[in-house]
Every structure is written in structure tokens, then in C-alpha cells.
């Protein structure tokens, strides 16, 4: 199995950049369409699915983090992205995942935690 790779957007200020509502990774829609979300794909299933991309990602995000060494980064630990792939992440993402995705997480015994900084540890 090939290692997961987070696509690096070619333009930092592209207005098309979107952040995943579940993991906060930032990619272009074309990357979500081609490869899905490198962290959450088995849950959000965005690959080749524009509707899922539209509902599970958003352009409403603040701050941008380059997570270069997620294993060792305290920034990644604080942002709850230390177990995700290396890539670009949003500091804050406004919005919630669709109900069906939240239900899937509950089925797995997981609690959804929005990334809008309203749910802080």
C-alpha cells in the first residue's frame, strides 16, 4: 500500500482552497476529488464525490499551519493533528460535518469535535 501523501497546493492564496471539517487539512478541491482526504477518507468518502467535498470541506477557515513533523510538533499536538499526515492545516475551521458523518463516528464510538475552537480541552 502506498503511503498517504497530502497534496501541497500550488498557490497559497488560492480562493479555492478548502479545509476538511473533520481534520482541518487544507487542499484544493481537485486534490480532494482525486485523492480524497488523506486523514479521514474512510469516514468522509470525498474521493470522486463533489457533493461530499462540498459538505465535508469549507472555505471558512482562519490561519494556516504547515505541519512538517507531526509526530514531534507541539503545535500539531495542541491542534489535535499530530496523528495526521504532514501538510497544510487550518488553525480554525468554521462549520460542522454532515450528520451522517457524525453518525458514522458515533457508530465507531467516537465523539465529533468541531474545529472552530468552541470545544477546547
Amino acid at each position, binding site marked *: 500500500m502506498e503511503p498517504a501523501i497530502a497534496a501541497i497546493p500550488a498557490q497559497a492564496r488560492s480562493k479555492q482552497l478548502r479545509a476538511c471539517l473533520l481534520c482541518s487539512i487544507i487542499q484544493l478541491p481537485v486534490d480532494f476529488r482525486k485523492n480524497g482526504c488523506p486523514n479521514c477518507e474512510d469516514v468522509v468518502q470525498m474521493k470522486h464525490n463533489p457533493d461530499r467535498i462540498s459538505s465535508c470541506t469549507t472555505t471558512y477557515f482562519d*490561519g494556516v*499551519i504547515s505541519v512538517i*513533523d507531526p509526530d514531534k510538533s507541539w503545535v500539531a499536538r495542541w491542534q489535535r493533528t*499530530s496523528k495526521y499526515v504532514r501538510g497544510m492545516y487550518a*488553525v480554525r475551521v468554521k462549520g460542522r460535518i454532515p450528520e451522517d458523518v457524525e453518525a458514522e463516528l458515533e457508530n465507531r464510538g467516537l465523539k465529533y469535535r468541531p474545529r472552530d475552537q468552541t470545544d477546547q480541552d
Partner: protein
Amino acid sequence: MSEETHRALRSFLDLEAGVDDDDDEVGGGRSDDEEFDDFIDNDNPAELGEASTQQRLSWTQLPYREDGFTQLLTEILERSVNSGGRNLALREPTEHPDDAFIQVSMPPTSHDFPLWRVACRLGIEEEAVFSLLQLAAPRHELRSAFTRGSICGWVYLETTMNEHINRLLKLTPGIVSRRTGIIWEQIDFEDWTKMLTMHDIEANVDVGRWVRVRKGTYKGDVGYVLASELWGVRLLLAPRLSPPNLASSSLKRKRSTVVPEPALFDFNTIEHIYGTPAVKQNDRTHRFRGNIFSDGLLLKKYDFHSISLTSVFMPTSTFFLFQQSHHPTILAARFPCPLEWSFDEGDQVLNSSSSKLGVIISIGAETAEVDLAGDEGIINVPWTELCKHIVVGDFVEVLSGPLRESTGWVERVDDEIVHVVQHLSSETLEENQHYRIKVDYMLASATWTNFTSRNSKFILIG
């Protein structure tokens, strides 16, 4: 440095990092935006040092075509593999992927790499962060880099700040590089997590609005919003250029406690005064010492934290400077009532655009409701078109300025200048002084026949 690279680099040279003394952040910070006046030597690219011999990467030069993106990414990965030591490739999917969804925020410890903030040109912060993701290798000891978005002019690095990352930063698009090196500060440990706490700010500042600058050399000054962007605003301000003797002093920064007086930028005389010419640009602006001037006014960028929408008070001196600039946007703009002007409901006024008299009905921020004589009724008149109606013989009192509380009779009115015979004593008028006052400073209390001392004489001078 090749000419093409130099041109690409110069696209960043006109930007100026803003000042950021946000309450959320600590450390010395840059509280005086004059600190960047000499951070770029446009005249001698060679003095950029090590960076001048190597090509900076620019995101604007990267191709952005869907068909070319895959090729670009492949090239990046190949370079990373061939360069050795880099590890762009990431992790294997976890055996228990659900673990990733139950992560808990863990605070930093003393064993973690420290957090630094590094000065970055306004509007280029995200490009810098993206570039570091591309270029970082293990030797740089850089674990993450981020920008807050709302606070511009800085990027934050989780790093040991060794020599390798220092060299990399000099090549990173947007990072401010002075002759003395990169501008950076270490963030206190107890403030690390605050850097990742976002606050909602007023980001809806309309073009054409007047705002007050909260930080730096222009703290307290009122500026006109020429453009509003995602990161902040571009303001037109009355320039405050340091005097020539201070501007040409050594590069060693010394904090000046004297803020220069505002004065319009004059392209024709600047070289005579400072010994350095201003550069005329294609958009009819001028560039001088890292600043951009448009029709005599300074064009400056500020993030939203550096401006205030409240307590916007414009001194009359600033009002006149803006008017004298003849900047086309400013001439068409509406102004707040200058601080020293005193208008009350019931004041008789002259609408200078129509030369019609009227009476003020109500006072607004940028206009006054005036009931014009005749059939025109009540209209809104901008402050730039209003002046008090003063006539010869009126007894007046100066309400503001150096002649405040002076009283006297109006001897002559020349447009907006009122010539007044000052009354110094209720007993005699023999030692009267004659002076001129701008009409809007005055309160016309009554004609001379209503003067309190009926024994005084009224003598016209000259």
C-alpha cells in the same frame, strides 16, 4: 542576481510589514513601523547579502494549471528524495485509524522546540508558510510554521532557530531580511498556546471610511480606507517623514520620541531635502525609502488589529492637508467634522457649493442637515461644503486654536478668512490688535451693537 529574479524580488519590495503590538502577544515586538524604513536597499541589491546570490522562490511564478499540477508535485517529491534526508513522504496509514479521531489537545512542554515569530511582509504570510513546508528538511529543525491570518506581518515557527533555518528563511518568499539579518523574536512559553487561539475581529471595513491608526508612527492619526482586503486595509495618511538629519543617521536603530509633523510629500523637492530622489512608478505613485506616496499622501497597509473604527477625530490641520493633496479619491470623499470646528443646531451657514444660506437643523458624522432658504428645503451638506456665515460687524469669539477665547468685531471677510479687530479691554479700544481667523473657528454671538460695554468705542483700523 539575474535581472528576472531581481524583478521578481522587487515585487515584494514595495510591501511593508505592519506593526503588531496585539494584546495577545508579548515580547518587544515592533511598535514603531519606522523600523522598516531602511530594511530594503532598493539601490543596491548586492547588499541583500547571501540571499542575493540565490534565487528566491515565488509562488506567483509557480504554474497553476490542473494539468501541470501533478507534474509539479512529482518534481517536488523527486527533488525531496534526491536531495537526501528530506522526508516529504508521510506516514503509513495507521493500523488503528480511529485513533486519529480521538486526539486530545496536549499543551507544550519544556522539551518542545521553542516558538518564534519572524517578520514577514504584509499579505505574504501564507506564501511563506507554504514555502517552508516545501523546503524544510530535518537539518532545519523546523516542526511547524503557521500564520494567524488575522494578525499580519508575522509568521510563527516551531524551531530551534539554528543556522540552517536562518539560511532557509533568507530564501523564503515574504520573510523580511535586513542587512543585519532576519527579524525574529522568541515567544514566552506561557503565551505559546495563545498564538493558536483565534479571535473574531471586525473585518468589514468599508472603502471610503475614516479610521484611526492604533499603532506605530501614525498612532492616533486618521486615515482614509482606500482598499479593504482579507488581511487588512490600505490607508491614505498625511505623511510624517523624519527630518533629513534623523533620516540619514546611522542604521543603528534608536527610538525617537518626537513624532514628525505631518506634511504632504512633494516629489519635486524631496531630493533637495533628503539627498535621495523618489522613484516615480507606473501607477503615478512615488516610492521613497520603502514608502509609497500618492498625490502627496502616504499609502500604507494595516491589518485589522492595527486600526480602530471608533474615536475617529480629525484635527483641522489634517483636514486641510488632505484637501490640499488634490488626491482624486480624497477630493470626492466625505470627511468627518474637524475636531476644532464648532457647529450647533441653529447656526447660520453658507453652502459653498451653491452659495446659499441656511440654518443647521442637525449635526451628523460626515454631513449636516441644513434648512436652506427658499424652496429647497432641508438637505444634507458635507462638512467640506459648509462654513459659518459671518458678516462685517458681527461680534465674534474664537473657540479653538491659538487665539482661543479672543473676542472682537469682524472688520472684513475674505472667503474663509475673517479679519477681526480684537477687543482687549472693556474700557478702551486704543490698543486693539488686528488679526485674521478662519471663519469656522468662531462663534458669531451678536453684532457690535450688542456688545456688553456700551461705553466702549468701535474704531476700525486700516
